[in-house]
């Protein structure tokens, strides 16, 4: 759907807009597919399977709307974006999830996120940032885990405290 389109519009076709339209259509399809597995239990009125179909219809209409907008090139202008920092932050989030998932604890996980985000925003002093991150997340851990008694996941570092 997002590849070359034979229609020749007056303005440039917005590729990204076509992808958005395709994604909305796909989401509508997922909704319909999922709702077909639901039994209709309601004696009167709507069962649980009705609303997903209504929303899927809306999504499908909006997919068409977005598709038309994209063909006309009606999307607002975008500035160039630098993918490197975005990827760096996403790596940071992935690290955080992995460390939490493998029981590495709150302090290590958030420190990893802190350092990668800071690097994404142009800092190159990774060692300094690591120290700052460790101190800050330890303080947060103590404040929230001990003072507010919220349970944050504990790993090797937390057990030392």
């Amino acid at each position, binding site marked *: 759907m997002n590849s070359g389109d034979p229609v020749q519009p007056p303005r440039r076709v917005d590729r990204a807009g076509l992808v958005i339209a395709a994604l909305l259509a796909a989401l509508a399809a997922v909704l319909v597919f999922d709702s077909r597995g639901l039994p209709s239990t309601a004696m009167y009125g709507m069962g649980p399977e*009705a609303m997903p179909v209504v929303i899927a219809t809306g999504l499908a209409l909006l997919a068409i709307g977005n598709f038309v907008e994209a063909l006309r090139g009606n999307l607002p202008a975008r500035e160039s*974006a630098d993918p490197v920092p975005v990827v760096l932050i996403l790596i940071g989030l992935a690290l955080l*999830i992995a460390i*939490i998932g493998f029981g590495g604890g709150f302090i290590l996980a958030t420190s990893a*996120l802190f350092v990668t985000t800071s*690097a994404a925003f142009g800092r190159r002093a990774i060692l300094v940032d690591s120290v700052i991150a460790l101190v800050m997340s330890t303080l947060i851990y103590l404040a929230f885990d001990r003072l*507010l008694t919220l349970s944050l996941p504990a790993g090797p570092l937390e057990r030392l405290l």
Partner: protein
Amino acid sequence: MDTFAALAHGMAVAVQPMNLLYALIGVFLGTAVGVLPGIGPALTVALLLPVTYKLDPGGSLIMFAGIYYGGMYGGSTTAILINTPGESASMATALEGNKMAKAGRGGPALATSAIGSFVAGTIATIGLAFLAPWLVDVAVRFGPEDYFALMCVAFVTVSATFGDSPIRGLTSLFIGLTLGLVGIDKLTGQARLAFGVPELLDGVEVTTLAVGLFAVGEALYVASRRHHTEEKLEPVRGSLWMTKEDWKRSWKPWLRGTMFGFPIGALPAGGAEIPTFLSYSTEKRLTKHPEEFGKGAIEGVAGPEAANNASAAGTLVPLLTLGLPTSATAAMMLAGFQQYGLNPGPLLFAERPDLVWGLIASLFIANMMLLVLNLPLVGLWVRLLAIPQPWLYAGILVFATMGTIAAKPSVVELSMLAGFGVLGFLMRRFDFPIAPVVVGLILGPIAESQLRRALAISLGDPMTLVQSPISATLLAVALVALLAPFVLKGLGRFKANED
């Protein structure tokens, strides 16, 4: 007279020392977080929700009131001093306020915004206290079909009527509605869109969505276009105080801003953008100093700031009386209520008057505290603004993920947070509004169950939706609000925006 008694009772709740302390902490934290660039009041509330997990509902809602007003005040400080409005409602403030700060009049700009917010907040809270019981009387007569119709109005106005593009607004809303479907259906126990993942059975957490969209999304977006902008922090030079002339030029805009802000905020119309811009253009028209507009006119700060605050108090009217959030911030407040199993609406006024009126009274107190705290503390807030960007956003992300980790330390939940972050980034990049997603998620399931209840009562007859006069009127309003932007666009009214 009833209102006075209820309010007096609320005051008695609010001035208990512990509750005063909660309000103080709320105001302080709200301002401290809200002052950080790029963080609007909705995110401030979302980020600080976990702090209130362990408090009793009364105390936590009072803290919320403080966070709410504090976040708003912090946002305008940022708008004035570094010209990065955290939300579109602060845009008018940034326009004139930042110019004033550049001209060395940052102090009076901050002062007029603080005092204006106080005046507007106080008047609007009085309005809330008097309007709420009346609306509650109306709302108890609402049947499920009327509620459903009312929510349709809110859906349309929040997403389509007032945005730049109704198609993009509605797209955001439907993404939110889709997310609202995830999990176990409350009426039948069937799992929808869970794909066999046990964590999804509980549905999508509003806080996870809001923090992902607002905080993670914003950080990704700012990082992606870091090479475009250079933020400049204006130092606060000269006197903090307003001159006699400043007072003379400010008090009318404060009152006019309040008049715009409160009614528009109280209607389920969503957002404070309209009243702030109305106020800005009105002041521009009425001023005796038209030459100063665009160069730092104090009226251009006083009016919109008052309008912004008044409309914030206004959005509490539908939220408290009908359970209807009409802005992202109000949706977060509703999430705060729900975390204690409380559902705002007419029943809450009857069942927990101490809670509701304590909250309303706390709004007065929070407002007062802001005025007393913020002007003296402005030096501290300025120092917060000077945190280098890498540490600032790294810190924001740590706090953002901490909320989720504290609530549900699971890989699935954190992955959803990251996924919503990417969604928020893409929506910012392609100019889709964010608030409708949050409103759709929180209001969608409520609207669905009201509709299904209405249809079950009518034995499946859909005509029930138009047989109730209230519901029929509201559905007609929703239809007009949905079609208006398309029709008006055809007439060329938004042509200037389009091309």
